[in-house]
């Protein structure tokens, strides 16, 4: 099972097993990763599952869709490595993915 590392805003590092087919947002909620609100449940209407992807990993992800890019502007503090975790589907190739949770989602 791919392993994903979430760094919470308080510095806590969470390494969790992630089932392929779920999204990075869904795994965070299942595993109780702190700081991901995911208000809308993955429908691209809230931008509260914002994460910063480790630079090494950013280009290895399927690029953000136009709709996701538009929603990223709706996050609290967008950066070049921002993604919405509900749009990152876990596949075996993402074993080792590292993301950081922002200080706030709204």
């Amino acid at each position, binding site marked *: 099972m791919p392993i994903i590392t979430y760094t919470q805003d308080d510095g806590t590092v969470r390494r969790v097993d992630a089932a392929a087919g779920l999204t990075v947002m869904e795994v965070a909620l299942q595993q109780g990763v*702190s700081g991901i609100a995911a*208000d809308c*449940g993955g429908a*691209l209407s*809230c931008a509260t599952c914002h994460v910063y992807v480790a630079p090494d990993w950013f280009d290895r992800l399927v690029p953000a869709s136009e709709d996701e890019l*538009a*929603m990223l502007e709706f996050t609290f503090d967008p950066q070049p490595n921002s993604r919405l975790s509900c749009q990152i589907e876990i596949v075996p190739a993402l074993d080792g993915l590292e993301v950081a949770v922002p200080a706030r989602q709204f």
Partner: protein
Amino acid sequence: MTAGSSPQSELRIPPHVSLDRVVWFDFRHDAGLHADPHARLEELRRAGPALFTPHSRALTGPGTWIFTSSAAIRAIFQDPETFASGGVRPFGQLIGDSWPLIPIDIDPPDHARYRRVLNPMFSPARMAQLEPAIARRAAEIAGPLIARGDCEFIADFAQPFPVSIFLELFGLPLERLRDFIGFNEAILKGEGEAQVAAIRGLRDLLREEILRRRKQPSEDLLSELLTARIDGRAFDDDELTGLAVTLFLAGLDTVTSTLGYMFLYLAQAQSAQSLLRDKPELIGGAVEELLRMFNVVMTARRATRDTVIDGVEIRKGDNVALPTSLISRDPAEVESPDEADFMRVDNRHSAFGYGIHRCLGSHLARRELGAALRCWTSTMPPFTKPAQVRPVSTGIGVFSLARLDLTWA
């Protein structure tokens, strides 16, 4: 029979509805809902996971399914192809117009195209810029009340505070604040001719304001809608009307309603109120926790095809009511859901809805609610509610307190 309601004889139970699912829940006249909407919804939860009331939640039409489990409510929100919003609020049709409410009554794929244009207008970064003005407005409205020793919180604060901020954002004249509140009440809570007249009045007024900005653009959101582009073109007149009416109705009512329940709670829970006075750093957590406890919206969808939810057969055309309070207070998901805990960690609630139609204005709403709590727990004396007055709620899609009397020494 109450004026305007359907006579009992017209209420029918369709053949596909099993009788053990039926509750006679009247969205407009239910006494329990008027006494305490959140407690009444919990009663429905105890009545079963899938209920059918022969009463319509909408203006007309057949009965309504009410799902009470978080899983079912979320599943319906997440499936806009099967559970559509189109035509759920036919305000334009009521006055013979063709504009729909945009984006709330728009289904995929068009819905995302509109939200893409609107999202940046209500982004956290833009709303954060308004924070000083929002705090100032709260102080301006609450300040003069101090010397009085009491107030009717809804009319004296909960209405003028968010409505005046909204009117300013929209560039609408503040001196007509009471007219705008009147339109809003008549459209969302009225029925019959008064409702039709209010829709027409609001449409005419907004069209006039749009026309004025075509000639002389200004810095407000209405002007921004005129210059916005969707697929490379400007919005047409119907789209502009549908957008303006929707933003108006959504922006005027929900924060007022939420403030009412928040302050009713704080007036009764003196320890929670003094906690916020002593520890203002808890205000952010208090906003989220009180939002969670007092969801004010019970939205609706219409089935576009036959389907099965929670083992229940739904037929094409069936109406579904979605009380998000039942997600936010679900004991299976939230520890001690009826207790306010301002330090709750990862407080995930559905006060802003769920799925593609989740609230566009949440970042504005959160800032307004925070400013109101900060103002009333820092500059106002400790307030209570006269014990003999029982609060009464109104509303179908949005619950709100009819009035809230507060006193202080």
